[in-house]
């Protein structure tokens, strides 16, 4: 039985900042390029949901029996987030969920665990979703180099688009990139030391190991996909291992940044989006050691290539100031504005999770009216408890009515767009819009659902669905 990747997806947040803007704020040189910045309502959970949902456009969610989440910036220090992501993806409660963390290698570690699970027939379809929002010290190079993003792959044995050939790993104990308990900023060791004895050593070792294990040579690969903490690190390691420049997957450091555990999966998704049947792809992730994998692209690949990665690179809006980056990442305070008049309840949040998290509405069995969130009594015909739960959040809808409130949000992100949307069957949705450009908002604008953090009342994260304009190519 051949196993491997059955779907892949990358999620880039809509906001970007040019590194030059960050450098100028500190009266220092800005590094080349730009980086992704998660929105005020995004975190590693919401981006992991986005990435996982990308895979669910290809893989039947009914068949997914495991979801692994990898992140070094998971919003909760204690509480499973893979369950939250699985719920937002409307997976069954029978699905096995697991959280991977501690090191940016968590993304490929989860991938290896998923391949092992499917090979061992412990699971048949596993979604591995990774997302990170790493934070470097103010003024540091890392602050500019890191980027916020998510990526996911589905592992299974049906309709495999990239067949798994082999995996190899090394562990390499070194204090090169670390955070102590309670710290926000990532500490990094002296640059030449950590490059020589950390990244370059482990990546070099793992490339050697995988080539030895498979008996393949550098020239056999169409693409080598390497995690890269800096602009040129991946190119250096690849060259030393004998790969030619054109074999090396663009590390997207000029557009996205180092998105930690998500990075190797994101670059793999980028590579697969343009790969050809028969291509051999080598992918490796780094963090106190390294994991490497070899995949062979199958003819199934053409069925899932939609150019989504290129499109999501093009969908962007620039933050015009460094201070906005700081407040968007919670590094400086924003005035939260008026307090909410309604108070959170973790019991109510649990009770309402079918609609709030799963995105299920009710469709009346008598008259067919669908409402979201769920309603026990049909507003059209009055039938009580005679409805079926239907998944709403995979739908698109068009703006029927809206308002743009300039004052309702928090001080650094004040504009709140209340939206009434209508889908093709006439179902109405009331949501807040996000990732908008106010100039594009009009009656008739096409929208899709996106899972976001609404607020942190109750000292926990209240997530729910918002809408955003459907952009060409989507956000994959």
């Amino acid at each position, binding site marked *: 039985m051949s196993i491997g990747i059955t779907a892949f997806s990358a999620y880039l947040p809509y906001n970007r900042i040019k590194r030059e803007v960050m450098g100028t704020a500190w009266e220092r040189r800005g590094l080349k390029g730009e980086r992704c910045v998660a929105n005020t309502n995004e975190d590693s959970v919401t981006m992991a949901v986005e990435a996982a949902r990308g895979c669910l456009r290809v893989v039947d969610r009914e068949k997914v029996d495991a979801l692994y989440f990898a992140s070094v910036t998971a919003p909760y220090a204690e509480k499973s987030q893979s369950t939250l992501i699985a719920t937002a993806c409307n997976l069954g409660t029978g699905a096995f969920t697991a959280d991977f963390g501690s090191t940016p290698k968590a993304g490929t570690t989860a991938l290896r665990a998923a391949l092992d699970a499917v090979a061992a027939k412990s699971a048949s379809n596993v979604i591995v979703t990774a997302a990170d929002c790493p934070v470097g010290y103010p003024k540091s190079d890392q602050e500019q180099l890191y980027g916020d993003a998510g990526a996911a792959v589905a592992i299974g044995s049906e309709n495999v688009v990239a067949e798994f050939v082999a995996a190899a790993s090394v562990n390499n104990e070194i204090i090169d990139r670390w955070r102590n308990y309670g710290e926000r900023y990532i500490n990094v060791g002296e640059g030449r030391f950590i490059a020589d004895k950390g990244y370059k050593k482990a990546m070099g070792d793992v490339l050697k190991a995988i080539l030895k294990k498979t008996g393949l040579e550098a020239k056999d690969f169409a693409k080598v996909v390497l995690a890269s903490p800096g602009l040129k690190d991946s190119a250096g390691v690849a060259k030393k291992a004998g790969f030619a420049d054109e074999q090396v997957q663009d590390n997207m450091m000029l557009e996205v940044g180092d998105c930690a555990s998500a990075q190797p999966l994101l670059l793999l998704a980028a590579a697969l989006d343009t790969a050809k049947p028969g291509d051999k792809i080598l992918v490796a992730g780094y963090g106190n050691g390294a994991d490497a994998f070899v995949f062979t692209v199958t003819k199934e690949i053409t069925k899932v290539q939609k150019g989504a990665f290129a499109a999501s690179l093009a969908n962007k809006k620039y933050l015009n100031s460094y201070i906005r980056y700081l407040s968007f990442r919670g590094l400086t305070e924003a005035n939260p504005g008026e*307090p*909410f008049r309604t108070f959170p309840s973790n019991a109510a949040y649990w009770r309402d999770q079918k609609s*709030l998290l799963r995105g299920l509405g009710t469709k009346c069995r008598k008259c067919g009216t669908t409402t979201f969130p769920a309603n026990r009594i049909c507003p059209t015909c009055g039938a009580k408890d005679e409805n079926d739960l239907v998944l709403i959040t995979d739908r698109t809808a068009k703006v029927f009515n809206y308002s743009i*409130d*300039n004052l309702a949000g928090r001080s650094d992100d004040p504009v*709140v767009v*209340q939206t009434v949307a209508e889908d093709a069957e006439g*179902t109405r949705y009331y949501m807040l819009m996000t990732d908008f450009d*106010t100039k594009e908002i009009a009656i008739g604008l096409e929208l899709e659902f996106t899972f976001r953090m609404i607020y942190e009342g109750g000292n926990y994260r*209240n997530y729910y669905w918002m809408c955003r304009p459907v952009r060409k190519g989507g956000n994959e």
Partner: protein
Amino acid sequence: MSIKDQTAIVGMGCSKFGERWDCGVEDLVIESTTECFEDAGVGPKDIQAVFLGQMYAPVGGLAASQVIDALKMKDIPFIRNENWCTSGHMALISAVMAVASGAFDVVMALGVEKLKDTGYPGLGTGRGMNPVSEARRTAPGSFAMIATRYFYEHGLSIDEGRELLARIAVKNHSNGALSPKAHFHNEITIEQVLKAPIIASPLGLFDCCGNSDGSACAIITRADVAKSMRDDPIYIKGFGISMDPMLPHNRPGFGWTSFPALVNSSHRAYEMAGIKNPREEIDVAEVHDCFTPTEMAIYEDFGFTTRGGAIEDIRNGFFERTGGLPVNVDGGLKCFGHPVGASGLRMTYEIYKQLQYKVDNPARQIKNVARGLSHTFGGPPQLSAVAVFGNEKG
């Protein structure tokens, strides 16, 4: 069923509205009830029940107790209701029904709200029914959607639409300038309205009502004894209350330019009052101008004009003080602000004084008045309450 002419208002009081930093809820209700007792010529001991309208319960969820303690009215029921912006009308209508039922002879309807103690200039975010799915729903953002859809349906550009709405703001400010108890007394121009900062597009600052403190109250008794208490009681001709079944944002097929609650509440009140043609038979009206597009939608839903007729009637000044049907003659919520529970009774106070020809500033007294209407519209919006009054029986 009709309770036309079964009950009458024999006294009313209304506090000064505004930023009453000097006053608590207690002071506001003492101010309005003192005037009310003097006007009616009765005292606290004559009141058999109090119906209280107050939306926010400021003291740990308690509302009525604070008012009871302030007024020292003994051994009678205090019944508090919260029905969003219609809370004042609900208090009034509850009082009317209590007297009409025969349970009581003399009761008080009392509305109060102390918004300025919340520490925030607006009505707050997250005013919905679910703390997660409605966390950032605001009043300006919701009511602005009436304008967005009205402009779209009638082919008005944003600029044309905003100019139309500006006329409502200018009218109400012109009236408010003549109202001593109003919060704002400044006349404004269309240009000022259009140049003001945008709050919730397409609404600018002057499209939104103020946020203030206030209290108003009424003493209700049986119509057959009202004349023994004063020469000019004001009779309750009819009322209508309607609640739409679902948040309009989620309601299938809802168009946003007309609200069933507005249509049904007004027409029920007309039916009870025997009014066939409101445009002709209503002489003065106080309606819910929380935002200018709300007042515009009300003109059409209340039958003050035809569907789409608001545009011409606004441009022609039909609802101005000197027009065919003066609306919000005291300046409305625009100038009084909207201390939620008090507003319905404050509006009724203006109608009461108009119908008695006793308006505190004669410059805004409407001539030849026999029928008046007051109205509040609340929630997302979802709830509407209307009352019709007359200065003679029949």
